């Protein structure tokens, strides 16, 4: 059966709006919910502990929860946060950058890749599947 998932929020919403959104998500028909800041590390209204707490609540509502990683890593501090994210012991991680793939596969952890991670062909897919890729978001540029 095809499942429904809710991708990570791309907008800079205020805290209450985010919490309300996931309240609604908990009651929605979606089976998978992706959580986390994927756009800009300077948005700090929701801390990692908050994401974990939201994730736990969603899980209690029966959702599969995935933590999404930052798309573009530049500062060393961002790598620090990514390492922490990839070590979390509660949820699977959506890798939005090759650094996350490397950290997760080195730790022998299964992972998903997100829309900004380029997988355009079978040979790429096969290699990543050997590294622990369990699901992937097709690039929007992929032809039918």
């Amino acid at each position: 059966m095809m499942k429904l998932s809710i991708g990570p929020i791309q907008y800079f919403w205020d805290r209450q709006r985010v919490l309300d959104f996931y309240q609604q998500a908990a009651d929605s028909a979606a089976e998978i919910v992706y959580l986390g800041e994927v756009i800009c590390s300077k948005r700090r209204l929701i801390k990692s502990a908050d994401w974990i707490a939201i994730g736990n609540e969603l899980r209690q509502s029966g959702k599969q929860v995935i933590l999404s990683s930052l798309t573009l890593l530049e500062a060393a501090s961002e790598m620090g946060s990514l390492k922490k994210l990839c070590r979390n012991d509660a949820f699977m991680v959506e890798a939005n950058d090759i650094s996350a793939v490397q950290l997760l596969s080195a730790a022998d952890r299964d992972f998903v890749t997100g829309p900004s991670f380029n997988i355009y062909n079978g040979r790429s897919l096969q290699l990543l599947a050997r590294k622990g890729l369990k699901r992937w978001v097709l690039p929007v540029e992929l032809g039918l």
Partner: protein
Amino acid sequence: MELVCPAGNLPSLKAAIDNGADAVYVGFKDDTNARHFTGLNFTERTFEKAVRYAQDKGRKVFVAINTCPQPNGFKRWQAAVDQAAEYGVNALILADIGVLDYASERWPDLRLHLSVQASVTSAEGIGFYHQNFAIKRVVLPRVLSVSQVAHVITESPVPVEVFGFGSLCVMVEGRCLLSSYATGRSPNTYGACSPASHVRWEETPDGTNTRLNGVLIDHYGEGEKAGYPTLCKGRFQVGENTYYALEEPTSLNTLSILPELQRIGVSAIKVEGRQRSPAYVAQVTAVMRAAIDHCMTDAEGYQPKDQWMQELASVSEGSQTTLGAYHRPWQ
């Protein structure tokens, strides 16, 4: 620091070599490389001449096969890899994981460089390509500051090449969808951003309009020099204002920070512009050669010469130059 220069055709390649490039990078005449423009790039015959011309003079040839094949096109990328390998080129510049996997398995002794199109900004990411495909060099995207580049270099398992001059991609390379959005074709899929097939120049009573697949990208009044309608470099209306909402059309110019790049351990400096003329290649190569030589013999006393700056400004997009992300104050 090695000087790596662009060559869109044989005259450009000769211009690069004759003006002191240590290496040239080229592409084949199809969508396997990120400068897939009409009239540009190498057929098998011109490619053979190119390799011979450069290698006879002791210089290197790199072949960019740095776009992403979709399942039905994979064979074309394999053929490009094989052809480059059979002609004994010095390195391939690759971006796609599948193509890297093929090349490293089929040609284990061939040197592989990771293209800027792979969009890798961390030592961990470089580690992935090093472990899996034994890449020998990485080209960093133009989004990092000098201190971030320095940090990557200290931890990277392979030497690092950075861009030293040329047009800029404001988004991180390999992950920009703007051109796809407007035209259905992008650097990743087709090897060109804002492809010429979709460009229209329109004369109007009060100047020139440039359009990309019908979308108005810019308007130039009388006497204003019209630029190529690359999507990110258009003037757009945002609220009340019409301006370069994404990026000003300027060129990257690192002459003033060459000693810094050398000090932090950059191994190679790349010049952008395979789509530009042989005259551009000759001029930029000559200036960069002089500057790098000067910097390598006397980093302390190094100062970019006014004449160099003027020569580079004259061939720059928008006739302005910038240090881009290298000197980003807020990081």
